[in-house]
């Protein structure tokens, strides 16, 4: 597996937005109220008789060109040989610059610790040959993890980005998404926990 970029496959067609991945991530990483290293966002739009809603579960995309690694002043971020981007919280000084810079808002500031934190791809589990906890928790098998090339071969219809997501050219995210027809329709709002953003 070494030297092959690891990444997530997100089956948007299959995800029902149950948030099990999010809760499993919070539980494993013992996160306080606030930070959600994996977040399920509901994209809504359309109108009667054709309304639509779909869920996107997204964490750190362990980008090939990670902007967090470049901008962090203390060098708290490193990219491993397998492509996972790891954040060393013991080095972090809580300047929040990574939270400004990441287009996917993967690094999040934890007020209780005064430091940023983000998905590490459960590298401790991966090193033991296991899957990240979110993948293990998904009851619909909508999340997969592995070498990006293999994920792409397994899901030939998968794409790197969706119209509702940030421009992938900025960081080249190591993620593949199985779209559904509605992703090309203009959404009206994105619901992220208690926050709703009109698009």
């Amino acid at each position: 597996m070494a030297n092959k970029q690891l990444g997530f496959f997100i089956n948007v067609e299959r995800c029902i937005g149950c948030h099990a991945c999010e809760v499993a991530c919070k539980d494993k990483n013992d996160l306080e109220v606030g930070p959600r290293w994996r977040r399920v966002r509901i994209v809504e739009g359309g109108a009667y008789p054709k309304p639509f809603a779909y869920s996107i579960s997204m964490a750190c995309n362990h980008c090939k060109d990670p902007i967090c690694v470049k901008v962090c002043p203390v060098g708290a971020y490193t990219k491993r040989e397998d492509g996972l981007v790891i954040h060393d919280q013991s080095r972090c000084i809580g300047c929040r610059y990574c939270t400004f810079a990441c287009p996917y808002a993967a690094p999040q500031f934890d007020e209780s610790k005064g430091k940023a934190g983000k998905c590490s791809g459960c590298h401790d589990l991966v090193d033991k040959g296991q899957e990240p906890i979110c993948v293990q928790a998904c009851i619909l098998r909508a999340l997969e993890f592995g070498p990006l090339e293999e994920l792409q071969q397994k899901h030939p219809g998968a794409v790197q980005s969706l119209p509702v997501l940030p421009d992938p050219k900025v960081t080249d995210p190591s993620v593949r998404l199985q779209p559904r027809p509605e992703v090309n329709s203009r959404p009206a709002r994105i619901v992220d926990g208690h926050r709703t953003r009109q698009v």
Partner: protein
Amino acid sequence: MKELPLILFTVLSQAAVGLVAIPTVLESLLGTEKVAALQPALRNVGRLVFPLALASLAASLWHLGAPLGAYRAVSNFGSSWLAREIILMGLFTACAAAYSHLWQWRPENQPARRTVGLVAAVVGLLAVFATGMVYQLPSRPDWSHWSNLMAGFVTALLIGGMAVSCAVARHAGAPVEARRYLGYIVLAAAAALVLGLAFYGPYLTGVSGTTTALLFGNSWFWLRLLVGVGLPVWVAAPLVKGEQPGPVLVRIALVAVVAGELVGRTLFYTSVLSQLPLF
């Protein structure tokens, strides 16, 4: 407000750079005799530089979640503009200490002061550039515009220009040329700000309607332009002619320009950061 430390850090540090750069330029442009006449006015300004730079560093520490680790913030200078900014601001503060020390204890040592002032001004202007580069992020097109890169220099020149004008207004013996130069500096800074906004407006409209509404739809933005830029221009007009505007008016304009820069910087941060995460 979460961004208050960043607002104070950037505005205070840029003001400190202006307070070194402008007296240094004036001392370089004027002859020895005229510099001597200006010295009592510039001394008050020179002594302020270090306290301002120190206060800006304190504000930058206040921003951190774990300030005790701040010393590590220089380690990734190879790729991080934030690390470069911290290094340059640290160097500038050291230069500012020497500069203020010379004004306080050795005001007669003009050659040393000019050399230290020149070094401090160059390092300070590089630090202002680094601050601007921190916000030139490919993931934040709302910020990534040359006018935002220029904004720090505008702040330095506007606050610096008005602060020196204020000090000069209190000393009747100040040469006419000094007033003229100060008038040109303030007018040039105000013109650069307006020109930058004239280009930034259409650019931002194409990037994000929400940010455009949050920035240009905010009445504080227009109030800042009217008072924080209009009043200094009002004061600069007689300065350019070599005339001395009333000291009270100059003081009011200094307060207006500082308040205007604080408001402008607040809008810069909140118009973008209040929307995060975008996805």
